[in-house]
């Protein structure tokens, strides 16, 4: 599979020269990638509040659903067979969100954690994971979306400033199923997430969106891979990021592979970055590899820019001061995705945190 093979991560201790690791500050991964981390089995993921009817949560020994060449995920799998399993019963339609959370457990060892989320056939549900506090976390999170199921998966990285978090969110999406993921990364020292999707039957679709805001010294990487290997699947990717402060660094990689068999594919991916100060760096790399011309559409776009002076002038000419004008523009920038979360309390909390990051960044 030529160049995109580079997205499949090498199963050895990375050196930083590999395509998949070339942006990542390996020295800041707390040894999760090279075996030097003190791995522990903690099962910090818990149900928050009551679990709605139709959903079950338990810890079980499991087989992995998918293979991976990601070295951290493989180390997690070698370490433990036990996973937190959230199952949504077939045909269950659950209106209220299923809330899971992880809270702080310190940074002197690393939790190696496995999670499986199974959306039973023709079920409909929203799953939210809230990550808060300071932790070292290596996470293998598998998501199975059975035929006809609709799953919205919301992962909130509202970490404290010392967190190191490396995770793969891998979704296997079956016939006529839809998978929607919203990733929010606004806290942590190093966060490296791999939202990846495997379409295994025609008619499947995914919508991967995310927002991130990195301030001084923070490193946030989001590396997608959407594998179109069956006909008539549809994918959308839309990530938006803001950066402010010295050595704030974000990486967005959007790999989409349309294999020869994937006729009728419809894909579009977009990444936009807002650079709010000097000294910050946004890497944005869309990759589209196409092995068949019989597709509906395939495209990508990536932009990185600063505040639009005309927008600020327009708002200020109506009496709005500079700080409020900047806040409005940044909120507006993120609103398109944050409003998709659909849970008012969480949206407000995220926006307030974004306001805080912006204020911290200064002028």
């Amino acid at each position, binding site marked *: 599979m030529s160049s995109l093979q580079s997205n499949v991560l090498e199963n050895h201790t990375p050196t930083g020269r590999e395509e998949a690791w070339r942006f990542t500050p390996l020295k800041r991964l707390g040894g999760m990638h090279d075996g030097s981390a003190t791995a522990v089995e903690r099962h910090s993921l818990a149900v928050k509040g009551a679990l709605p009817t139709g959903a079950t949560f338990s810890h079980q020994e499991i087989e992995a659903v998918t293979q991976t060449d990601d070295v951290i995920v493989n180390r997690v799998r070698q370490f433990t067979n036990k996973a937190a399993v959230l199952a949504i019963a077939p045909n269950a339609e659950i209106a209220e969100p299923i809330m899971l959370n992880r809270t702080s457990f310190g940074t002197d060892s690393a939790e190696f954690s496995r999670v499986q989320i199974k959306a039973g056939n023709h079920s409909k549900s929203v799953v939210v994971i809230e990550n808060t506090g300071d932790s070292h976390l290596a996470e293998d999170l598998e998501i199975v979306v059975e035929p006809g199921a609709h799953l919205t998966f919301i992962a909130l990285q509202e970490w404290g400033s010392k967190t190191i978090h490396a995770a793969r969110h891998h979704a296997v999406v079956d016939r006529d199923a839809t998978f929607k993921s919203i990733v929010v990364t606004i806290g942590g020292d190093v966060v490296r997430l791999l939202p990846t999707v495997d379409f295994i039957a025609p008619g499947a679709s995914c919508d991967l969106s995310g927002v991130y805001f990195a301030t001084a010294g923070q490193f946030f990487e989001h590396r997608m891979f959407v594998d179109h290997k069956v006909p008539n699947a549809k994918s959308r990717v839309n990530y938006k990021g803001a950066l402010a402060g010295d050595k704030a660094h974000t990486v967005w990689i959007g790999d989409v592979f349309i294999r020869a068999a994937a006729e009728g594919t419809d894909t579009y991916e977009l990444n936009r970055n807002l650079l709010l100060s000097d000294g910050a760096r946004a890497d944005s790399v869309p990759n589209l590899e196409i092995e068949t011309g019989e597709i509906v559409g395939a495209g990508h776009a990536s932009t990185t820019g600063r505040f639009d002076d005309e927008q600020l002038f327009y708002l200020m000419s109506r009496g709005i001061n500079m700080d409020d004008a900047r806040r409005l*523009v940044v909120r507006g920038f993120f609103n398109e995705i944050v409003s998709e979360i659909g849970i008012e309390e969480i949206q407000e909390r995220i926006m307030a945190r974004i306001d805080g990051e912006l204020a911290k960044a200064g002028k």
Partner: protein
Amino acid sequence: MSTLEIRGLKVSVDTEQGAVEILKGVDLTIKSGETHAIMGPNGSGKSTLAYSIAGHPKYTITEGTVTLDGEDVLEMSVDERAKAGLFLAMQYPVEVPGVSVSNFLRTAATALRGEAPKLREWVGEVKSAMESLKMDASFAQRNVNEGFSGGEKKRHEIMQLELLKPKFAILDETDSGLDVDALRIVSEGVVRAKAANNHGILLITHYTRILKYIKPDFVHVFANGRIVEEGGPELADKLEAQGYAEYVTA
């Protein structure tokens, strides 16, 4: 009674070829309740005058003064100028993605009035301003200027004029791009706002057709960065008949 006074205003912009002077000494005094039309050919510097008064960062004031009731406008930041009572209705209003009209208007009103307007009264104010400009209620939920037609953008500007109640309104080619019906609706909005607030108006236009609705007390012909002729409404009739040819070739 307020006075906006412009004296000897010279303005330049930076280009790749260096600074280029656009305004070459403008003198103009506007009092509350007066309507001044500034008319002139394209490229004469009319819009530069508007944006310079509002404080757009692209323009550098090299000489002259602008005062509002004696206060130095040029020392003020853009938002301070608005708070002092200046309003610019833009020729090309800017899109602000993700910010709803309703949120924008309330934020602006809060900034200008010094406190958040009472919700119930505010909702009524916005509703009545939108209705009088024949705007659909769904407008408030759309993002500022995003996907607006030319006419919708101008209505939105004049709606802000009605809600924000400035001392002086600068209308930069508000008539451009409007069909006859939209021109009438927008002009009626301007006239209504003036009747309510008695603000001064600086109406910048290329054409005379808007002057049928908004009657000027004074007409200034603008050419090559300065005012070249001044008079009453009859001057507009002359321009209508003869065009700008005599000023451009001068």
